[in-house]
C-alpha cells in the first residue's frame, strides 16, 4: 500500500470480496540525508496508508527494503548508465523487490497472494496457462512494467483494479470513504526525489559522468558533451550545439565516448534485439509471430514481427521506422490485449 488511491481501493475491494488482507508498504532507499525523500514512501504517504488500513480494519506493516533496494535496483540503475544504456529500474524493482522480497515477506506472514493496485488483468483459460492482460482502462494500463511476471507468480498475484477505469477507482475511493490523496502520476524514479537523474549520477556514480566529443556521423566535432549517460537516443533539446538544422542524438559510441548527432533523417531503425526475455507462457513461441510491441511504458503499439532467436532473445522487426529505440528499456510484446512477454532492448 502506498497511501495512493490505487492501492487503497485495491485493498478495499479485496476486503469487500472477503479476503483476509494485510497491508504492507516498502520502505525504499534514499540517499543519506534525504531519507524522507523517496517518492514511494514519504512520511505523509505512510501515514495515509496507515489511515486507510485502519479504515479497512486490516493490519499494516512497513517493511524495510532499503538494503535490498539499493543492491538490486539502485546498483542496476548506476551500472546501466555505466554500460551506456538507459536502464529501467522499475522493472527490476517489480521483479526483485515487489514480486520477490516483499512477496516472500508476505508469505512468511501466511499470505497466499500478493495483490497490488496495478492496472492489469490476470486471466486463466480452462486447463491452460495464466495470461497477463492489459487493463480495461487503456490509458492506465501497466502491463508493460508487469511483463516480468512468470506463471508461478501470476498464479499467486491479484490485480483488483484491472477491470476498472481510473475514474471508477476514484469514485470507489470516495464511496469507500478512504482518506487518500491524489498523487501526481510522476514517472520519475522514486529514489530521485525531486532531483534530476543527472545530479544523482554526478553524486553517486561520478565515473559515468565523463565528458567527450559531440560528433556528426562524418566525424566533425561540434562540441563537448557532459557524459553519455545524460543523453538518450532521439533527444533534441539540451544537446548544447548550435546548428542551422535541428540535431538529434542518433548514437552513443561507448568506445570513443562520443555522442553522435545528426538530422532527423539519421534517426530511426526498423529492427531491435531484445534479450533476457520473459515469456509469460514460460517458453518462446516455436516460430516468428506478429505482435504489437511497446518500446517504452507510454509509447504506442507498433506492428512488428517477433522472431525468437533462443528462449531469451528475439529479433523485433517493425513495420515502420522507429526513431526512439532506447537500449535498456523494455520491448514488450502483445497479441491484442494479451501480454506475451518482453525483454531488454540491446
Amino acid at each position: 500500500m502506498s497511501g495512493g488511491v490505487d492501492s487503497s481501493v485495491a485493498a478495499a475491494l479485496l476486503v469487500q470480496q472477503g479476503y483476509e488482507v494485510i497491508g504492507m508498504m516498502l520502505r525504499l532507499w534514499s540517499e543519506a540525508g534525504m531519507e524522507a525523500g523517496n517518492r514511494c514512501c514519504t512520511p505523509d504517504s505512510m501515514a495515509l496508508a496507515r489511515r486507510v488500513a485502519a479504515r479497512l480494519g486490516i493490519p499494516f506493516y512497513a517493511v524495510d527494503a532499503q538494503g535490498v533496494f539499493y543492491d538490486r535496483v539502485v546498483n542496476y540503475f548506476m551500472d546501466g548508465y555505466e554500460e551506456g544504456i538507459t536502464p529501467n529500474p522499475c522493472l527490476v524493482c517489480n521483479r526483485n523487490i515487489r514480486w520477490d522480497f516483499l512477496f516472500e515477506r508476505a508469505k512468511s506472514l501466511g499470505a497466499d497472494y500478493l495483490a497490488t493496485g496495478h492496472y492489469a488483468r490476470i486471466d486463466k483459460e480452462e486447463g491452460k496457462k495464466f495470461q497477463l492482460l492489459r487493463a480495461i482502462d487503456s490509458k492506465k494500463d501497466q502491463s508493460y512494467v508487469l511483463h516480468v511476471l512468470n506463471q508461478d507468480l501470476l498464479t499467486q498475484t491479484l490485480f483488483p483494479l484491472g477491470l476498472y477505469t481510473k475514474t471508477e477507482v476514484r469514485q470507489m475511493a470516495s464511496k469507500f470513504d478512504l482518506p487518500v490523496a491524489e498523487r501526481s502520476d510522476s514517472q520519475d524514479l522514486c529514489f530521485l526525489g525531486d532531483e534530476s537523474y543527472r545530479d544523482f549520477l554526478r553524486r553517486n556514480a561520478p565515473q559515468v559522468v565523463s565528458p567527450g566529443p559531440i560528433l556528426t556521423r562524418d566525424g566533425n566535432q561540434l562540441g563537448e558533451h557532459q557524459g553519455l549517460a545524460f543523453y538518450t537516443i532521439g533527444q533534441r533539446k539540451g544537446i548544447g550545439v548550435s546548428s542551422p538544422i535541428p540535431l538529434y542524438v542518433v548514437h552513443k559510441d561507448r568506445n570513443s565516448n562520443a555522442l553522435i548527432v545528426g538530422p532527423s533523417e539519421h534517426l530511426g531503425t526498423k529492427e531491435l534485439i531484445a534479450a533476457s526475455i520473459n515469456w509469460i507462457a514460460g517458453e518462446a513461441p516455436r516460430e516468428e509471430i506478429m505482435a504489437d510491441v511497446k518500446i517504452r511504458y507510454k509509447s504506442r503499439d507498433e506492428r512488428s514481427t517477433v522472431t525468437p532467436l533462443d528462449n531469451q532473445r528475439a529479433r523485433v522487426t517493425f513495420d515502420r521506422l522507429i526513431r526512439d529505440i532506447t537500449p535498456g528499456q523494455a520491448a514488450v510484446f502483445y497479441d491484442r490485449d494479451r501480454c506475451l512477454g518482453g525483454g531488454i532492448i540491446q
Partner: protein
Amino acid sequence: MILLTDKSKIYLDYAATTPVDPRVLEAMLPYFSDSFGNSSSVHSYGQDAENALESARESVAALLNCHPNEVIFTSCGSESDNLAIRGAAFAARNTRQANKILISPVEHHAVTNTAQQLAKLHNFNIEFLPVDEYGLVDPADVKERLRQDTAIVSIIYANNEIGTINNISAIGALCQERNVPFHTDAVQAAAYLSADTKALNVDLLSIGAHKFYGPKGIGALYIKDGTPIYPMMTGGAQEFGLRPGTHNIPYIVGLAKALEYAVEEREHRVGHILPMRDHLIGMVLEYIQGSYLTGHPILRMPNHASFVFEGVDGNALLLMLDVEGFACSSGSACKTGDPEPSGVLLAAGMPKDLATGSLRVTLGTKTTAEQIERFLDILPKVTKRVRQYSS
C-alpha cells in the same frame, strides 16, 4: 477494534502501556461530568475539584514518602523528565553557573533528547557515563565525574528496553554529598519498584500513570523541597507555579488511585508475574539457539524479559508475532520500516548486527501461564521462519 479480552490476541507489551484498571476508571468517572469544576475557582464547584486534587496529591505524596508540596502533576512521564532536566539545568546555570549535564547512555529519549537540545541550543555540556554489558551505571563512575559545575545528574531507574535496575539510592547519596540535583526517570520502575524518594536519595523523580494501570496523559514529578528549578511552561500559578494549566482532575485522581493499587498490590502482582517471567526467560534461552538475554539477569524489572537473536531481523519478528496474535516490542523496531539498532544495546556493547535482532516481552497483571505457554510454543517456530527469510 482489538480488545484485551480477544482470545486470539495476546498482549505482552505491558512496558509500552497497560490497560486502565476498572477500579481506577470508576474513581475517575465522577470528575468528568458531575464534579467538573475548575480547581482554581472560588465557588463550591471549584472547591470540590480542589479537594479531589489535593487529596490525590496527598495520596501520591504518601506513596512517594514525601510532602504533598513536593508533588507536581504533569501531562506524562516525558513532560516530567523535561521539566526536571530543563528546569533544574537552567536554574543551576542561573544560581551557580553550572553548565554540565551528566547522564547515562541508556536514558529514555525524553531525557537524552532534552539534554541534547539543551546542549545544542543553550550551550550546556553533556557528559555520558559508561555502562556495563547489562546497561548498569557504576556509582563510582558518577562520583568520579561530579564537579562544581555539574548542573544535574539524571540516571534511569529501570530501563524500558532491557529492564535493568540501577542503584539509584547509592548514586543519589553521592550527588547529595556534592549538592548536585539528581533526577531519576522512574516511569518504568514505578509499576513494580519502591518509589520511596527518601530511600532513593533523589531530588527529582518522574512517573507516568499509564505504565501502572492508570490512564495515559497524566504524570507526576517529585521535586524535593528546596531544589532550584524553573517552570518550563508559563501561565497560571497552578502546581506551585511550576506547571500552569487547568488541572486535569479526573486523570490526576486516576494517577493517584493507580499508584495506590500498584504499591498496595505490589507483592501480589510480582508474585503472579515473576515465576512466569523466569519460566519464559529460561525456556527461550534453552530452546532457541543463538538467543541471549539482554539486560541484567537479576537486577531487572520483574515483568521484563528481553532478548537478542542471532540472524534475526527484529522488525520482521515483530510482524510475524503480530500476525500470529502476539503483541511484543523491540528496541530497534520502528513503525516506518527504517530500523536502527537499539542505542541502548549498542551502549551496552552489543555488536550492531545482534542489536537489530532484539525482542522485548513484558508481562502484566492480566498475563496467564497459558498465554506464556502459547507464546513459548510459537516463538521458536517464528524465529526459525524469520531466520530463513533473513538469510
